[in-house]
């Protein structure tokens, strides 16, 4: 395999990806229904009713957090990957690194295939998300949630 072949392949990759982008625009949104359906799929053994959950969705980054009612079940981190949804069930939320910044919040996890999830938020939304995460991460501190 020589450099010309590699250059030709890279060009073909860019052209095909651009055509895919053009022909198949991603218009799917991370709706509440889609979110819960996927959480159910990834966490089949967690019992929950829709009303018991604390749900936070960031429409801008299409990331979300779902906190389960029973503290031992932890929470689910949800992200849209292209037009699909990926969920991580976090049974020990205390192990997550929560990094607030001026623009929002980043949740980092020791997960090589999904190292961080970003939320772009205003101040009030930031407080709401932090409260939800605090609720999941600190069972002794529910009064502040």
């Amino acid at each position, binding site marked *: 395999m020589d450099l010309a072949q590699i250059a030709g392949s890279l060009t*073909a990759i860019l052209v095909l990806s651009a055509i*895919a982008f053009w*022909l*198949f625009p991603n218009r799917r949104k991370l709706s509440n229904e889609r979110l819960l*359906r996927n959480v159910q799929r990834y966490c089949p*053994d967690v019992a929950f009713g829709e009303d018991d959950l604390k749900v936070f969705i960031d429409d801008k980054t299409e990331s979300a957090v779902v906190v389960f009612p029973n503290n031992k079940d932890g929470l689910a981190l949800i992200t849209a*990957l292209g037009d*699909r949804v990926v969920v991580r069930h976090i049974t020990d939320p205390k192990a997550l690194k929560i990094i607030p910044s001026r623009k929002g919040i980043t949740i980092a996890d020791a*997960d090589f*295939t999904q190292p961080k999830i970003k939320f772009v938020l205003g101040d009030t939304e930031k407080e709401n998300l932090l409260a939800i995460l605090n609720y999941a991460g600190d069972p002794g501190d529910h009064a502040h949630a």
Partner: protein
Amino acid sequence: MLDLPAPTQLAVPAFVLLVLAEMIYGWKTGRARFEAKDTMTSLIMGLGSTISGALTATLAIGLAYWVWATFAIFDLGAAWWVFVLAFVLDDFAYYWIHRMGHRMRWMWAAHVIHHSSQHYNLSTALRQTWTGFFTPSILFKMPIFLLGIEPAIVFFCAGINLIYQFWIHTEAIDKMPRWFEYWFNTPSHHRVHHANNPRYLDANYAGVFMVWDRMFGSFIPEDKAEPCRYGLVTDLGTFNPLRVALHEWIGIFKDVTQAQTMKDRILYLLAPPGWTPDGSRMTSDMIRDAWRERTAGHKSPKKAEEAASTTVAAE
């Protein structure tokens, strides 16, 4: 040494044109779906696989020729029937390499790449491993060299085999004629192989001939009532090609270095993906058993239907 062409390299322009054709067909009919970043990742993985294959080819070919020249029982030559025999034997070896690729974590670390897309289209066929050389897969082909078939013929047949497997990565074709579905691997059979629905896990390992799955009990037919949902049981949350290529190796490294005993270290390599000493993660067998239990637990027909639909509808 026989000088035979590399079929997969010659086929690259056809692959590109066929991916384009499927895109246009999918755009017109809705019977194929692409996502730009997913497509780009698959194609980059394909290019990387070709490059890594070229870099490691000398060693693999050298080993194969050494075994053939030193230990071959017969000298079968290069008659047409040797090519036919090589193709069948190579496909049989492929079946076992592929089966072990799903059942042994060391080999899964390389093969998982091919299953890491949540889409199923012709670009998925090109999403190939960068690290196949670092698994024991070549050992499965040694009996063919020992029998006396020259490695160049076997590698040539393996190339044709891979080309065959390109066209089956599509949702645009529903079913082939019945006789064809019986003997050969088809889009329908391979969709099941790429599905992460619990009932479809670890099935249909065939390359070309479907009979191996029928003979060794790994055949599961596609059921229209349960549409395939593609990807891994825990899908990747990234399109980064380096993370896609290396994630399971990193996982193995972490587990092996943190393991308490030598037995656990070895089992982290040789046991099925998801195995842990304390059962804290799930293997495909455990996922399937849990799914069966959940489905059986829903006694009334309506509830059972609901349980089934939660396994099919999500994506």
